[in-house]
């Protein structure tokens, strides 16, 4: 059922509360989890409800905390860690890659590692080089990990519960600009099975996107429909495993593909998808496949330098028009006054 009234952050909160209630052993920790801001509101009241033993704040020790989660998990305690920015998790790559991802396989399946690592991706308002990176490809490259990245509040809830009860380590990516959004702002109706990534049908182009960018994709679709371009929007939701057969089916129909990616280009999710399409279809598409990613540049902090950095629906529209060799009056498409905030309600500083 689609509860369109709940925003993304409340969905996360509700998924955590549901899971903590369902599994009395489960624990959940991260910097600031109990503080007045409760990780952008996502962990509000959890420690009040479930006790400081199960929901607790921690020292700034990302690497040990990840290993501690592995230790708790292999002894039967499902654990959720939260990083306020994905970038901080780089300190724990040894534990993620050499322990969490391998503790099952390397010991012949004797144990499993039910941990979920929530990582929040920054964008805008001077997040700068070390508070804005989507390094999903690093995690996808590692056998033994799963990587989820939902867009809609409804999926977020379902997927976070799924992650927590998955016996394997899951990297759960949340885009900072989604937390305040409700599904009703974007969706009329939505398929309610997780495996169904095709969230809006079309015949002319397969537009594949992830997380926040799916909202820009849907906006672009609306605009392009006016000139008769019908876009099929695929929301990835799960980066690893990838539902590649859905994607291939869609492309066989549309014969055109454009991918929107919040990460850096080299070795990106979009490169992986394009290579899979190529290997599987080995065919000439109606137009060359395109991926829009962040440029291969550390993100600068200045408002002025991020002006044209982010992928938004206008960039998508322009790219599609080029693919179709069409034009339309773009003057009417107004950019928001400030490109660096998720909405006028955001006044900084974080």
């Amino acid at each position: 059922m689609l509860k369109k009234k709940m925003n993304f952050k409340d969905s996360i909160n509700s998924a955590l509360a549901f899971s903590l209630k369902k599994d009395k052993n489960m624990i959940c920790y991260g910097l600031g989890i109990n503080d007045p801001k409760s990780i952008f509101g996502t962990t509000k009241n959890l420690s009040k409800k479930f006790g400081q033993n199960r929901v607790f704040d921690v020292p700034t020790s990302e690497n040990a905390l990840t290993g501690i989660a592995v230790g708790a998990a292999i002894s039967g305690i499902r654990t959720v860690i939260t990083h306020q920015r994905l970038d901080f998790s780089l300190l724990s790559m040894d534990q993620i890659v050499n322990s969490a991802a391998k503790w099952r396989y390397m010991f012949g399946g004797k144990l499993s590692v039910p941990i979920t690592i929530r990582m929040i991706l920054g964008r805008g308002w001077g997040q700068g080089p070390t508070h804005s990176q989507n390094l999903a490809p690093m995690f996808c490259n590692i056998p033994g990990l799963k990587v989820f990245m939902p867009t809609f509040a409804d999926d977020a809830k379902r997927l976070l519960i799924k992650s927590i009860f998955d016996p394997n380590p899951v990297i759960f990516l949340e885009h900072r600009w989604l937390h305040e959004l409700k599904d009703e702002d974007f969706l009329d109706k939505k398929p309610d099975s997780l495996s169904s990534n095709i969230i809006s049908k079309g015949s002319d182009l397969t537009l594949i996107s992830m997380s926040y960018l799916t909202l820009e994709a849907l906006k672009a679709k609306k605009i392009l429909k006016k000139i008769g371009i019908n876009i099929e929007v695929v929301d990835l939701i799960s980066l690893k495993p990838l539902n590649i057969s859905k994607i291939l089916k869609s492309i066989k129909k549309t014969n055109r593909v454009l991918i929107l990616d919040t990460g850096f280009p080299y070795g990106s999710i979009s490169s992986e998808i394009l290579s899979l399409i190529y290997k599987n279809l080995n065919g000439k598409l109606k137009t060359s496949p395109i991926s829009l990613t962040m440029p291969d540049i550390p993100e600068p902090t200045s408002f002025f330098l991020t002006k044209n950095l982010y992928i938004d629906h206008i960039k998508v529209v322009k790219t599609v028009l080029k693919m179709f060799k069409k034009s339309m009056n773009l003057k009417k498409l107004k950019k928001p006054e400030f490109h660096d905030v998720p909405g006028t309600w955001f006044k900084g500083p974080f």
Partner: protein
Amino acid sequence: MNSNLNFKLYYKMKLFREVELKIAMEYSSRKMRCPVHLSVGQEAVSAAFSQIVRKNDYAVSSHRPHLHYLGKGGNLKRMISEIYGKKTGCSSGKGGSMHLIDTSVNFMGSSAIVANSIPIGTGLALSLKLKNKINVSYIFFGEGALEQGVFYESVNFAAVKKIPAIFVCENNLYSVYTSLKDRQPEKRKNSKMVEAIGIKSFTCNGNNVFECYKIFNKAKQYVSKEKKPVFLEFFTYRHYEHCGPNKDDNLNYRPKNEINSWLKKDPLKNFTNNFTNAHKQKIKILDKEIQKKIKDAFEYAKKSPKPKLSDLRKDIYA
């Protein structure tokens, strides 16, 4: 008491306070579009530092670098411009408030990742030793950084290699909203801990600028003489929220009586009270200078040109 030094310390503390307050005031106009971590309440440490540090000494800092940068002699106009994201910013707009640099005075950068610059400052100290310099490398961080493993790795390396590193911890009791009890063992003495790892430590009332001055001086002497690293811990307190331009005492994460007792220990007020009436005249002059300096810096920043869009692609590789 050297009165000349006192005026210098006053000048720096007051300047630092007023710079931060001005940033807080202007922040609501939403032209400084990056997170800012103000050091109001913690001025004494950097003011004292400014009177000891030499130009050829190195320094690095954390997410709260404004006063370390200024204490090292960093250019105020370029710092404010950086926070405004302007081309004239000390990091050309690319770094923002958390990433300040002024290579002309050997302030070698600051990092938004907790403890990230500690090994970098350690590497700078190694480089001083390799080059046979008499200088030292100052490494600024908060007590939250003591929770990162890389701190211990760096201290251990500095001790093994006997390099001129001065580790400077400003312990303001909080990491964001989280108090020490959730993060560090009760009753731990960080200085004892670091001494047990292998290097000399000094602790200090971080709100008494004169004591801070004496400790920095001691540390410098020690490092020069012994050719070994040292760890300094200053106890202090921030008056504003962790990040942003407001006070947030309404959120109640810090006990009221704790806040009040620290407000009574305001480093600037207490130091100012020491001046006699005879000195007040001189202080007025200094205050005016300060106001002018700040006004100029903000005007400079506001008037400065934006970076060009093409600057985005500059300086990725050398």
